[in-house]
Protein backbone atom coordinates (compact mmCIF):
# COMPACT_ATOMS: atom_id res chain seq x y z
CA UNK A 1 0.00 0.00 0.00
CA UNK A 2 1.36 3.40 -0.95
CA UNK A 3 0.11 6.84 0.09
CA UNK A 4 1.35 9.49 -2.27
CA UNK A 5 0.97 13.24 -1.86
CA UNK A 6 1.79 15.26 -4.98
CA UNK A 7 2.25 19.05 -4.97
CA UNK A 8 -0.29 19.50 -2.20
CA UNK A 9 -1.54 22.97 -1.37
CA UNK A 10 -3.45 22.98 1.93
CA UNK A 11 -5.22 25.68 3.89
CA UNK A 12 -8.51 27.10 5.11
CA UNK A 13 -10.67 28.98 2.62
CA UNK A 14 -8.43 31.38 0.73
CA UNK A 15 -5.58 31.06 3.21
CA UNK A 16 -2.81 28.82 1.99
CA UNK A 17 -0.79 27.30 4.80
CA UNK A 18 1.20 24.59 3.06
CA UNK A 19 2.34 24.98 -0.52
CA UNK A 20 3.60 22.41 -2.93
CA UNK A 21 4.43 19.53 -0.61
CA UNK A 22 5.06 16.07 -2.02
CA UNK A 23 5.92 12.84 -0.25
CA UNK A 24 5.29 9.11 -0.20
CA UNK A 25 4.67 6.63 2.65
CA UNK A 26 4.62 2.91 1.98
CA UNK A 27 3.79 -0.23 3.94
CA UNK A 28 6.34 -0.85 6.68
CA UNK A 29 7.46 2.76 6.84
CA UNK A 30 6.99 5.27 9.62
CA UNK A 31 6.92 8.86 8.47
CA UNK A 32 7.29 11.43 11.23
CA UNK A 33 6.14 14.98 10.75
CA UNK A 34 8.04 17.50 12.85
CA UNK A 35 7.69 21.24 13.06
CA UNK A 36 6.97 24.19 15.34
CA UNK A 37 3.46 25.17 16.45
CA UNK A 38 1.36 26.88 13.84
CA UNK A 39 3.35 25.71 10.86
CA UNK A 40 0.54 23.65 9.37
CA UNK A 41 0.99 20.12 10.67
CA UNK A 42 -2.64 19.81 11.65
CA UNK A 43 -3.76 21.41 8.40
CA UNK A 44 -1.81 18.83 6.42
CA UNK A 45 -3.29 16.07 8.54
CA UNK A 46 -6.85 17.24 8.15
CA UNK A 47 -6.35 17.48 4.41
CA UNK A 48 -5.05 13.94 4.08
CA UNK A 49 -7.95 12.63 6.17
CA UNK A 50 -10.40 14.56 4.00
CA UNK A 51 -11.65 16.95 6.71
CA UNK A 52 -10.29 19.85 4.64
CA UNK A 53 -10.45 20.18 0.88
CA UNK A 54 -7.17 19.90 -0.95
CA UNK A 55 -6.71 23.26 -2.67
CA UNK A 56 -4.42 21.97 -5.37
CA UNK A 57 -2.37 18.87 -6.10
CA UNK A 58 -3.46 15.29 -5.54
CA UNK A 59 -3.53 12.51 -2.97
CA UNK A 60 -3.17 9.00 -4.34
CA UNK A 61 -3.58 5.63 -2.69
CA UNK A 62 -1.87 2.96 -4.79
CA UNK A 63 -2.11 5.35 -7.71
CA UNK A 64 -5.84 6.10 -7.31
CA UNK A 65 -6.91 9.67 -6.64
CA UNK A 66 -8.99 9.69 -3.45
CA UNK A 67 -10.69 13.01 -4.11
CA UNK A 68 -14.06 11.49 -4.99
CA UNK A 69 -13.93 8.53 -2.61
CA UNK A 70 -16.84 8.17 -0.20
CA UNK A 71 -15.97 8.29 3.49
CA UNK A 72 -16.40 4.61 4.18
CA UNK A 73 -14.06 3.61 1.34
CA UNK A 74 -11.31 5.83 2.74
CA UNK A 75 -11.95 4.59 6.28
CA UNK A 76 -11.26 1.03 5.21
CA UNK A 77 -7.73 2.07 4.18
CA UNK A 78 -6.76 4.94 6.46
CA UNK A 79 -7.17 4.51 10.22
CA UNK A 80 -7.04 7.73 12.21
CA UNK A 81 -5.78 7.94 15.79
CA UNK A 82 -6.78 11.35 17.14
CA UNK A 83 -5.41 12.89 20.30
CA UNK A 84 -7.23 11.31 23.21
CA UNK A 85 -10.11 13.40 24.50
CA UNK A 86 -13.06 12.71 26.71
CA UNK A 87 -16.39 12.05 25.01
CA UNK A 88 -19.52 13.29 26.79
CA UNK A 89 -20.83 9.82 27.62
CA UNK A 90 -19.27 7.00 29.68
CA UNK A 91 -18.93 4.42 26.91
CA UNK A 92 -17.60 0.98 27.57
CA UNK A 93 -14.06 0.50 26.16
CA UNK A 94 -15.10 -2.40 23.94
CA UNK A 95 -17.97 -0.32 22.54
CA UNK A 96 -15.47 2.41 21.64
CA UNK A 97 -13.13 -0.06 19.92
CA UNK A 98 -16.00 -1.64 17.98
CA UNK A 99 -16.77 1.77 16.47
CA UNK A 100 -13.76 1.08 14.26
CA UNK A 101 -16.04 -1.32 12.35
CA UNK A 102 -18.33 1.50 11.18
CA UNK A 103 -16.99 1.59 7.62
CA UNK A 104 -17.45 -2.17 7.27
CA UNK A 105 -21.08 -2.16 8.43
CA UNK A 106 -24.20 -1.19 6.51
CA UNK A 107 -25.97 2.00 7.65
CA UNK A 108 -28.68 0.14 9.60
CA UNK A 109 -26.44 -2.61 10.94
CA UNK A 110 -25.19 -3.16 14.47
CA UNK A 111 -21.87 -4.93 15.07
CA UNK A 112 -22.01 -8.72 14.83
CA UNK A 113 -20.14 -11.31 16.86
CA UNK A 114 -17.38 -11.22 14.25
CA UNK A 115 -16.96 -7.47 14.73
CA UNK A 116 -16.71 -7.98 18.49
CA UNK A 117 -13.98 -10.58 17.90
CA UNK A 118 -12.03 -8.22 15.64
CA UNK A 119 -12.24 -5.51 18.30
CA UNK A 120 -11.06 -7.90 21.01
CA UNK A 121 -8.22 -9.02 18.79
CA UNK A 122 -7.12 -5.40 18.35
CA UNK A 123 -7.03 -4.91 22.13
CA UNK A 124 -5.09 -8.17 22.40
CA UNK A 125 -2.53 -7.00 19.82
CA UNK A 126 -1.79 -3.98 21.96
CA UNK A 127 -1.73 -6.01 25.19
CA UNK A 128 -4.57 -4.05 26.72
CA UNK A 129 -7.33 -6.69 26.82
CA UNK A 130 -7.75 -5.97 30.51
CA UNK A 131 -9.34 -2.64 29.60
CA UNK A 132 -12.19 -4.28 27.70
CA UNK A 133 -14.96 -3.89 30.26
CA UNK A 134 -13.74 -0.64 31.78
CA UNK A 135 -15.39 2.71 31.22
CA UNK A 136 -13.58 4.75 28.56
CA UNK A 137 -13.97 8.04 30.41
CA UNK A 138 -12.50 6.60 33.61
CA UNK A 139 -9.24 5.08 32.32
CA UNK A 140 -5.93 6.95 32.20
CA UNK A 141 -4.72 9.06 29.28
CA UNK A 142 -2.19 6.44 28.24
CA UNK A 143 -4.82 3.71 28.28
CA UNK A 144 -7.20 5.90 26.31
CA UNK A 145 -4.53 6.41 23.67
CA UNK A 146 -4.11 2.63 23.41
CA UNK A 147 -7.87 2.23 23.05
CA UNK A 148 -7.91 4.74 20.21
CA UNK A 149 -5.09 2.88 18.48
CA UNK A 150 -7.06 -0.34 18.95
CA UNK A 151 -10.10 1.35 17.44
CA UNK A 152 -8.05 2.38 14.40
CA UNK A 153 -6.72 -1.19 14.06
CA UNK A 154 -10.29 -2.47 14.16
CA UNK A 155 -10.85 -0.53 10.94
CA UNK A 156 -8.37 -3.02 9.38
CA UNK A 157 -6.54 -0.19 7.66
CA UNK A 158 -3.36 -0.26 5.61
CA UNK A 159 -2.29 3.21 6.68
CA UNK A 160 -2.34 4.61 10.22
CA UNK A 161 -2.46 8.37 10.63
CA UNK A 162 -1.64 9.47 14.17
CA UNK A 163 -1.88 12.97 15.57
CA UNK A 164 0.75 13.35 18.30
CA UNK A 165 0.16 9.86 19.65
CA UNK A 166 2.31 10.56 22.72
CA UNK A 167 0.87 13.94 23.69
CA UNK A 168 -0.09 14.18 27.38
CA UNK A 169 1.38 10.78 28.21
CA UNK A 170 3.91 10.11 30.95
CA UNK A 171 7.42 9.05 29.97
CA UNK A 172 6.76 5.31 30.28
CA UNK A 173 3.53 5.42 28.32
CA UNK A 174 5.18 7.49 25.58
CA UNK A 175 7.75 4.78 25.04
CA UNK A 176 5.13 2.02 25.22
CA UNK A 177 3.12 3.73 22.50
CA UNK A 178 6.26 4.13 20.36
CA UNK A 179 7.04 0.43 20.79
CA UNK A 180 3.57 -0.45 19.56
CA UNK A 181 3.91 1.89 16.60
CA UNK A 182 7.17 0.18 15.66
CA UNK A 183 5.54 -3.24 15.95
CA UNK A 184 2.57 -2.22 13.84
CA UNK A 185 4.79 -0.88 11.11
CA UNK A 186 6.83 -4.09 11.10
CA UNK A 187 3.58 -6.00 10.65
CA UNK A 188 3.08 -4.13 7.39
CA UNK A 189 1.20 -0.94 8.19
CA UNK A 190 2.27 2.40 6.80
CA UNK A 191 2.38 4.94 9.64
CA UNK A 192 2.20 8.70 9.31
CA UNK A 193 2.48 10.56 12.61
CA UNK A 194 3.20 13.98 14.03
CA UNK A 195 5.40 14.57 17.03
CA UNK A 196 7.02 17.41 18.93
CA UNK A 197 10.07 15.40 19.96
CA UNK A 198 12.99 14.81 17.58
CA UNK A 199 14.10 11.93 19.82
CA UNK A 200 10.91 10.06 19.01
CA UNK A 201 11.73 10.39 15.34
CA UNK A 202 15.18 8.94 16.06
CA UNK A 203 13.57 6.04 17.91
CA UNK A 204 11.07 4.92 15.37
CA UNK A 205 10.81 6.76 12.12
CA UNK A 206 12.22 5.57 8.87
CA UNK A 207 11.51 8.88 7.16
CA UNK A 208 10.96 12.41 8.32
CA UNK A 209 9.50 15.67 7.13
CA UNK A 210 10.35 18.86 8.98
CA UNK A 211 8.00 21.73 8.27
CA UNK A 212 9.63 25.09 8.84
CA UNK A 213 8.22 28.59 8.82
CA UNK A 214 7.85 30.31 5.43
CA UNK A 215 6.79 27.11 3.80
CA UNK A 216 10.12 25.40 3.69
CA UNK A 217 10.40 21.72 4.29
CA UNK A 218 13.14 19.19 4.58
CA UNK A 219 12.59 15.50 4.16
CA UNK A 220 14.52 12.29 3.96
CA UNK A 221 16.17 9.81 6.29
CA UNK A 222 16.06 10.78 9.96
CA UNK A 223 19.82 10.85 10.53
CA UNK A 224 20.34 13.05 7.50
CA UNK A 225 17.53 15.50 8.14
CA UNK A 226 17.67 16.01 11.90
CA UNK A 227 20.90 17.89 12.39
CA UNK A 228 21.94 20.52 14.88
CA UNK A 229 21.69 23.16 12.14
CA UNK A 230 18.21 22.10 11.01
CA UNK A 231 16.82 22.09 14.54
CA UNK A 232 18.34 25.54 15.14
CA UNK A 233 16.73 26.79 11.95
CA UNK A 234 13.39 25.12 12.74
CA UNK A 235 12.94 25.89 16.43
CA UNK A 236 15.53 28.63 17.05
CA UNK A 237 17.25 26.69 19.82
CA UNK A 238 20.71 25.21 20.26
CA UNK A 239 20.92 21.43 20.47
CA UNK A 240 23.62 18.81 20.44
CA UNK A 241 23.11 15.48 18.76
CA UNK A 242 24.87 12.55 20.31
CA UNK A 243 24.77 8.84 19.85
CA UNK A 244 24.37 5.90 22.23
CA UNK A 245 24.37 2.16 21.65
CA UNK A 246 21.25 0.11 22.27
CA UNK A 247 21.07 -3.48 23.57
CA UNK A 248 21.84 -4.82 20.07
CA UNK A 249 24.87 -2.61 19.66
CA UNK A 250 23.13 -0.34 17.14
CA UNK A 251 23.68 3.38 17.25
CA UNK A 252 20.71 5.42 18.44
CA UNK A 253 20.86 9.17 17.99
CA UNK A 254 19.52 11.52 20.62
CA UNK A 255 19.25 15.25 20.72
CA UNK A 256 19.83 17.27 23.83
CA UNK A 257 18.76 20.90 24.00
CA UNK A 258 21.19 23.40 25.48
CA UNK A 259 19.74 26.06 27.71
CA UNK A 260 21.19 29.55 27.50
Amino acid at each position, binding site marked *: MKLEINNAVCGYGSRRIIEDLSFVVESGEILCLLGPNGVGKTTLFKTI*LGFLKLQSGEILIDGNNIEKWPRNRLAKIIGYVPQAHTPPF*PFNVLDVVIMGRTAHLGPFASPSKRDILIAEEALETLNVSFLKDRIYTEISGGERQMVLIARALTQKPDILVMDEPTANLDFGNQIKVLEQINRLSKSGLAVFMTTHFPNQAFLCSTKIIILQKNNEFKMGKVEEVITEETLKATYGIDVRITSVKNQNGENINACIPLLN
Partner: protein
Amino acid sequence: MEDSKISEIEPLIKSKKYAARKFDKKWILLILSALLIATFAISFTLGRYAIPLSQLFEILFSKLFGFQATWDATIDTVLFKVRLPRLLAAISIGAALSLSGATYQGLFKNPMVSADILGASAGAGFGAAIGMLLSFDPMGIQLMSFAFGLGAVAITTIVSTIVGRGNDSTLLLVLTGMVVTSLFSSAIALIKYIADPDLKLREITFWLMGGLSAIRMSDLKIVLIPMVLGAVPLLLLRWRLNVLSFGDEEAQALGIDTSRLRLITIICSTLLTASTVSIGGIIGWVGLVIPHLARMLVGPNYSILLPTSLLVGGLYLLIVDNVARCMFAMEIPLGILTSVIGAPFFIYLLMHGKRGWV
Protein backbone atom coordinates in the same frame (compact mmCIF):
# COMPACT_ATOMS: atom_id res chain seq x y z
CA MET B 1 -1.22 -26.17 17.54
CA GLU B 2 -2.61 -26.52 21.03
CA ASP B 3 -1.74 -22.93 21.75
CA SER B 4 -3.30 -21.52 18.65
CA LYS B 5 -6.50 -23.41 19.43
CA ILE B 6 -6.69 -21.88 22.84
CA SER B 7 -6.08 -18.42 21.50
CA GLU B 8 -8.91 -18.99 19.06
CA ILE B 9 -11.34 -20.19 21.68
CA GLU B 10 -10.50 -17.70 24.35
CA PRO B 11 -11.72 -14.58 22.57
CA LEU B 12 -14.84 -16.51 21.63
CA ILE B 13 -15.59 -17.17 25.27
CA LYS B 14 -14.90 -13.58 26.09
CA SER B 15 -17.19 -12.35 23.36
CA LYS B 16 -19.87 -14.68 24.65
CA LYS B 17 -19.59 -13.01 28.00
CA TYR B 18 -19.95 -9.69 26.25
CA ALA B 19 -22.98 -10.93 24.38
CA ALA B 20 -24.41 -12.24 27.65
CA ARG B 21 -24.14 -8.81 29.21
CA LYS B 22 -25.91 -7.32 26.22
CA PHE B 23 -28.58 -9.93 26.69
CA ASP B 24 -29.09 -8.86 30.31
CA LYS B 25 -29.75 -5.39 29.08
CA LYS B 26 -32.31 -6.71 26.64
CA TRP B 27 -34.24 -8.02 29.67
CA ILE B 28 -34.64 -4.44 30.80
CA LEU B 29 -36.48 -3.70 27.57
CA LEU B 30 -38.79 -6.63 28.23
CA ILE B 31 -39.44 -5.55 31.81
CA LEU B 32 -40.08 -1.98 30.72
CA SER B 33 -42.52 -3.15 28.05
CA ALA B 34 -44.40 -5.21 30.62
CA LEU B 35 -44.47 -2.25 33.02
CA LEU B 36 -45.78 -0.02 30.26
CA ILE B 37 -48.61 -2.42 29.41
CA ALA B 38 -49.54 -2.87 33.09
CA THR B 39 -49.52 0.88 33.72
CA PHE B 40 -51.57 1.37 30.58
CA ALA B 41 -54.22 -1.04 31.86
CA ILE B 42 -54.30 0.54 35.31
CA SER B 43 -54.46 4.04 33.85
CA PHE B 44 -57.68 3.02 32.09
CA THR B 45 -59.38 2.54 35.43
CA LEU B 46 -58.20 5.84 36.89
CA GLY B 47 -60.07 9.11 36.62
CA ARG B 48 -63.06 10.99 37.81
CA TYR B 49 -65.22 8.18 36.51
CA ALA B 50 -63.48 5.23 38.17
CA ILE B 51 -63.86 1.85 36.51
CA PRO B 52 -62.63 -1.19 38.43
CA LEU B 53 -59.96 -3.29 36.77
CA SER B 54 -62.19 -6.36 36.74
CA GLN B 55 -64.89 -4.51 34.86
CA LEU B 56 -62.29 -3.19 32.41
CA PHE B 57 -61.14 -6.71 31.58
CA GLU B 58 -64.73 -7.82 31.24
CA ILE B 59 -65.40 -5.04 28.77
CA LEU B 60 -62.23 -5.65 26.82
CA PHE B 61 -63.01 -9.36 26.70
CA SER B 62 -66.53 -8.76 25.44
CA LYS B 63 -65.29 -6.29 22.84
CA LEU B 64 -62.67 -8.72 21.66
CA PHE B 65 -65.15 -11.54 21.08
CA GLY B 66 -68.01 -9.37 19.92
CA PHE B 67 -70.33 -10.05 22.89
CA GLN B 68 -73.33 -7.89 23.59
CA ALA B 69 -72.57 -4.79 25.66
CA THR B 70 -73.88 -5.26 29.20
CA TRP B 71 -72.49 -2.00 30.49
CA ASP B 72 -73.53 1.61 30.49
CA ALA B 73 -72.94 3.57 27.28
CA THR B 74 -71.25 6.29 29.36
CA ILE B 75 -68.54 3.83 30.31
CA ASP B 76 -67.98 3.12 26.66
CA THR B 77 -67.55 6.82 25.88
CA VAL B 78 -65.29 7.41 28.84
CA LEU B 79 -63.08 4.46 28.04
CA PHE B 80 -62.76 4.56 24.30
CA LYS B 81 -63.53 8.15 23.28
CA VAL B 82 -61.84 9.99 26.14
CA ARG B 83 -59.36 7.81 27.95
CA LEU B 84 -57.96 5.64 25.17
CA PRO B 85 -56.79 8.50 22.93
CA ARG B 86 -55.45 10.35 25.93
CA LEU B 87 -53.40 7.45 27.24
CA LEU B 88 -52.08 6.66 23.79
CA ALA B 89 -51.17 10.32 23.28
CA ALA B 90 -49.32 10.45 26.61
CA ILE B 91 -47.29 7.38 25.70
CA SER B 92 -46.46 8.50 22.19
CA ILE B 93 -45.58 12.06 23.22
CA GLY B 94 -43.35 10.87 26.04
CA ALA B 95 -41.67 8.34 23.75
CA ALA B 96 -41.20 10.85 20.93
CA LEU B 97 -39.72 13.59 23.12
CA SER B 98 -37.33 11.15 24.81
CA LEU B 99 -36.24 9.66 21.50
CA SER B 100 -35.55 13.04 20.00
CA GLY B 101 -33.83 14.31 23.17
CA ALA B 102 -31.56 11.27 23.38
CA THR B 103 -30.67 11.65 19.71
CA TYR B 104 -29.82 15.33 20.08
CA GLN B 105 -27.67 14.70 23.15
CA GLY B 106 -25.49 12.42 21.04
CA LEU B 107 -25.57 14.58 17.94
CA PHE B 108 -24.49 17.70 19.83
CA LYS B 109 -22.13 15.76 22.10
CA ASN B 110 -23.83 17.46 25.00
CA PRO B 111 -25.94 15.84 27.72
CA MET B 112 -27.60 19.17 28.54
CA VAL B 113 -29.36 19.32 25.20
CA SER B 114 -33.05 18.68 24.88
CA ALA B 115 -35.53 17.98 22.07
CA ASP B 116 -36.33 21.67 21.53
CA ILE B 117 -32.74 22.89 21.08
CA LEU B 118 -33.12 23.87 17.42
CA GLY B 119 -36.35 25.80 17.91
CA ALA B 120 -38.94 23.11 17.12
CA SER B 121 -41.05 23.73 20.23
CA ALA B 122 -40.94 27.52 20.08
CA GLY B 123 -41.79 27.44 16.38
CA ALA B 124 -44.64 25.00 16.90
CA GLY B 125 -45.95 27.09 19.79
CA PHE B 126 -45.90 30.19 17.61
CA GLY B 127 -47.76 28.39 14.82
CA ALA B 128 -50.45 27.26 17.22
CA ALA B 129 -50.74 30.76 18.72
CA ILE B 130 -51.32 32.25 15.27
CA GLY B 131 -53.88 29.55 14.54
CA MET B 132 -55.78 30.40 17.71
CA LEU B 133 -55.51 34.13 17.08
CA LEU B 134 -57.07 33.63 13.65
CA SER B 135 -59.73 31.31 15.18
CA PHE B 136 -58.77 28.22 13.17
CA ASP B 137 -60.47 24.92 13.97
CA PRO B 138 -58.52 22.42 16.12
CA MET B 139 -57.22 20.62 13.04
CA GLY B 140 -55.99 23.90 11.55
CA ILE B 141 -54.22 24.84 14.78
CA GLN B 142 -52.56 21.45 14.85
CA LEU B 143 -51.41 21.82 11.27
CA MET B 144 -50.11 25.37 11.79
CA SER B 145 -48.22 24.23 14.85
CA PHE B 146 -46.62 21.30 13.06
CA ALA B 147 -45.67 23.39 10.02
CA PHE B 148 -44.10 26.18 12.07
CA GLY B 149 -42.19 23.64 14.15
CA LEU B 150 -40.59 22.25 11.00
CA GLY B 151 -40.12 25.78 9.63
CA ALA B 152 -38.26 26.99 12.72
CA VAL B 153 -35.75 24.13 12.50
CA ALA B 154 -35.39 24.68 8.75
CA ILE B 155 -34.52 28.34 9.46
CA THR B 156 -31.99 27.27 12.11
CA THR B 157 -30.32 24.80 9.75
CA ILE B 158 -30.20 27.14 6.77
CA VAL B 159 -28.98 30.17 8.73
CA SER B 160 -26.24 28.19 10.47
CA THR B 161 -25.10 26.82 7.11
CA ILE B 162 -24.90 30.33 5.67
CA VAL B 163 -23.10 31.71 8.73
CA GLY B 164 -20.68 28.76 8.75
CA ARG B 165 -19.91 29.16 5.01
CA GLY B 166 -19.98 25.46 4.32
CA ASN B 167 -18.13 24.37 7.46
CA ASP B 168 -20.81 22.44 9.24
CA SER B 169 -20.30 23.06 12.91
CA THR B 170 -22.67 21.67 15.50
CA LEU B 171 -21.85 24.52 17.89
CA LEU B 172 -23.06 27.02 15.32
CA LEU B 173 -26.23 25.00 14.92
CA VAL B 174 -26.92 25.12 18.68
CA LEU B 175 -26.23 28.86 18.86
CA THR B 176 -28.48 29.58 15.88
CA GLY B 177 -31.10 27.34 17.49
CA MET B 178 -30.98 29.52 20.61
CA VAL B 179 -31.47 32.65 18.51
CA VAL B 180 -34.39 31.16 16.57
CA THR B 181 -36.00 29.86 19.80
CA SER B 182 -35.72 33.27 21.40
CA LEU B 183 -37.13 34.95 18.30
CA PHE B 184 -40.19 32.69 18.19
CA SER B 185 -40.71 33.07 21.95
CA SER B 186 -40.81 36.84 21.52
CA ALA B 187 -43.24 36.39 18.66
CA ILE B 188 -45.47 34.28 20.93
CA ALA B 189 -45.29 37.01 23.57
CA LEU B 190 -46.28 39.57 20.95
CA ILE B 191 -49.31 37.52 19.92
CA LYS B 192 -50.33 37.15 23.56
CA TYR B 193 -49.97 40.90 23.95
CA ILE B 194 -52.32 41.71 21.07
CA ALA B 195 -54.74 38.82 21.70
CA ASP B 196 -58.16 39.45 23.22
CA PRO B 197 -57.49 38.90 26.94
CA ASP B 198 -60.84 37.30 27.74
CA LEU B 199 -60.94 34.70 25.02
CA LYS B 200 -57.82 34.26 22.92
CA LEU B 201 -55.17 35.03 25.53
CA ARG B 202 -56.66 32.45 27.88
CA GLU B 203 -56.81 29.85 25.16
CA ILE B 204 -53.24 30.50 23.96
CA THR B 205 -51.76 30.54 27.46
CA PHE B 206 -53.53 27.36 28.42
CA TRP B 207 -52.49 25.63 25.22
CA LEU B 208 -48.85 26.61 25.66
CA MET B 209 -48.79 25.07 29.14
CA GLY B 210 -49.28 21.71 27.54
CA GLY B 211 -52.08 19.25 28.16
CA LEU B 212 -53.85 16.29 26.70
CA SER B 213 -57.43 16.89 27.84
CA ALA B 214 -58.73 17.87 24.40
CA ILE B 215 -57.21 15.00 22.44
CA ARG B 216 -59.40 13.01 20.08
CA MET B 217 -58.66 9.75 18.33
CA SER B 218 -58.76 11.47 14.93
CA ASP B 219 -56.01 13.93 15.95
CA LEU B 220 -53.88 11.13 17.23
CA LYS B 221 -54.22 9.05 14.08
CA ILE B 222 -52.93 11.88 11.91
CA VAL B 223 -50.01 12.82 14.14
CA LEU B 224 -48.87 9.21 14.43
CA ILE B 225 -47.77 9.32 10.78
CA PRO B 226 -44.98 11.93 11.22
CA MET B 227 -44.10 10.34 14.56
CA VAL B 228 -43.49 6.95 12.99
CA LEU B 229 -41.67 8.59 10.06
CA GLY B 230 -39.35 10.24 12.57
CA ALA B 231 -38.89 7.32 14.93
CA VAL B 232 -38.19 4.47 12.51
CA PRO B 233 -35.07 5.90 10.79
CA LEU B 234 -33.61 6.92 14.17
CA LEU B 235 -34.13 3.44 15.56
CA LEU B 236 -32.58 1.89 12.45
CA LEU B 237 -29.56 4.20 12.51
CA ARG B 238 -29.15 4.04 16.28
CA TRP B 239 -25.79 2.30 16.42
CA ARG B 240 -24.23 5.01 14.24
CA LEU B 241 -25.35 7.70 16.70
CA ASN B 242 -22.64 6.36 19.04
CA VAL B 243 -19.98 7.25 16.50
CA LEU B 244 -21.48 10.69 15.94
CA SER B 245 -21.11 11.52 19.64
CA PHE B 246 -17.32 11.36 19.26
CA GLY B 247 -17.38 14.44 17.08
CA ASP B 248 -17.50 15.14 13.37
CA GLU B 249 -13.88 14.51 12.48
CA GLU B 250 -13.61 11.20 14.26
CA ALA B 251 -16.93 10.05 12.84
CA GLN B 252 -15.76 11.00 9.34
CA ALA B 253 -12.46 9.20 9.82
CA LEU B 254 -14.42 6.13 10.89
CA GLY B 255 -16.33 6.24 7.63
CA ILE B 256 -19.52 8.21 8.30
CA ASP B 257 -20.86 10.88 5.99
CA THR B 258 -21.56 13.20 8.91
CA SER B 259 -23.40 15.97 7.04
CA ARG B 260 -25.91 13.50 5.68
CA LEU B 261 -26.38 11.55 8.91
CA ARG B 262 -26.78 14.80 10.85
CA LEU B 263 -29.38 16.11 8.43
CA ILE B 264 -31.35 12.85 8.66
CA THR B 265 -31.30 12.85 12.47
CA ILE B 266 -32.31 16.52 12.64
CA ILE B 267 -35.23 15.96 10.26
CA CYS B 268 -36.40 12.90 12.21
CA SER B 269 -36.07 14.54 15.63
CA THR B 270 -37.90 17.61 14.39
CA LEU B 271 -40.76 15.52 13.01
CA LEU B 272 -41.05 13.95 16.45
CA THR B 273 -40.89 17.16 18.47
CA ALA B 274 -43.17 19.18 16.21
CA SER B 275 -45.71 16.34 16.27
CA THR B 276 -45.81 16.30 20.07
CA VAL B 277 -46.26 20.05 20.36
CA SER B 278 -49.01 20.07 17.73
CA ILE B 279 -51.22 17.77 19.82
CA GLY B 280 -50.03 18.31 23.37
CA GLY B 281 -48.60 21.81 23.59
CA ILE B 282 -45.19 22.50 25.06
CA ILE B 283 -44.25 19.72 27.48
CA GLY B 284 -40.81 20.49 28.82
CA TRP B 285 -38.11 18.48 30.57
CA VAL B 286 -39.11 15.06 29.23
CA GLY B 287 -36.57 15.13 26.39
CA LEU B 288 -33.82 16.19 28.78
CA VAL B 289 -34.44 14.02 31.82
CA ILE B 290 -35.57 10.71 30.35
CA PRO B 291 -32.44 10.06 28.24
CA HIS B 292 -30.39 10.53 31.44
CA LEU B 293 -32.56 8.10 33.34
CA ALA B 294 -32.29 5.60 30.49
CA ARG B 295 -28.52 6.05 30.39
CA MET B 296 -28.40 5.24 34.10
CA LEU B 297 -30.32 2.05 33.43
CA VAL B 298 -28.52 0.67 30.39
CA GLY B 299 -25.45 2.84 29.71
CA PRO B 300 -24.72 5.19 26.82
CA ASN B 301 -24.68 2.72 23.90
CA TYR B 302 -27.41 3.90 21.54
CA SER B 303 -28.17 0.36 20.38
CA ILE B 304 -29.97 -0.17 23.67
CA LEU B 305 -30.28 3.42 24.92
CA LEU B 306 -32.66 4.53 22.20
CA PRO B 307 -35.30 1.80 22.66
CA THR B 308 -34.96 2.18 26.45
CA SER B 309 -35.50 5.96 26.22
CA LEU B 310 -38.56 5.34 24.10
CA LEU B 311 -40.13 2.98 26.65
CA VAL B 312 -39.15 4.97 29.74
CA GLY B 313 -40.40 8.18 28.11
CA GLY B 314 -43.76 6.65 27.28
CA LEU B 315 -44.12 5.19 30.76
CA TYR B 316 -43.09 8.44 32.43
CA LEU B 317 -45.50 10.70 30.61
CA LEU B 318 -48.32 8.17 31.05
CA ILE B 319 -47.80 8.29 34.83
CA VAL B 320 -47.38 12.04 34.97
CA ASP B 321 -50.53 12.53 32.92
CA ASN B 322 -52.40 10.28 35.33
CA VAL B 323 -51.27 12.56 38.12
CA ALA B 324 -52.28 15.61 36.07
CA ARG B 325 -55.83 14.38 35.59
CA CYS B 326 -56.50 12.57 38.88
CA MET B 327 -54.54 14.21 41.67
CA PHE B 328 -56.66 17.30 42.20
CA ALA B 329 -60.24 18.25 41.53
CA MET B 330 -58.98 20.59 38.83
CA GLU B 331 -56.71 19.27 36.11
CA ILE B 332 -53.12 20.51 36.29
CA PRO B 333 -51.54 21.50 32.96
CA LEU B 334 -49.18 18.70 31.98
CA GLY B 335 -46.31 21.02 31.00
CA ILE B 336 -46.27 22.55 34.46
CA LEU B 337 -46.26 19.15 36.10
CA THR B 338 -43.40 17.80 33.97
CA SER B 339 -41.31 20.81 34.96
CA VAL B 340 -42.20 20.54 38.64
CA ILE B 341 -41.29 16.85 38.63
CA GLY B 342 -38.50 17.06 36.06
CA ALA B 343 -36.38 19.80 37.60
CA PRO B 344 -35.78 18.26 41.05
CA PHE B 345 -35.54 14.80 39.49
CA PHE B 346 -32.80 16.08 37.23
CA ILE B 347 -30.88 17.41 40.24
CA TYR B 348 -31.25 13.98 41.81
CA LEU B 349 -29.81 12.36 38.68
CA LEU B 350 -26.91 14.81 38.72
CA MET B 351 -26.18 13.84 42.30
CA HIS B 352 -26.38 10.09 41.84
CA GLY B 353 -25.72 9.38 38.20
CA LYS B 354 -22.47 8.28 36.62
CA ARG B 355 -21.42 11.39 34.82
CA GLY B 356 -19.08 11.04 31.89
CA TRP B 357 -19.02 14.70 30.96
CA VAL B 358 -17.27 16.22 34.00
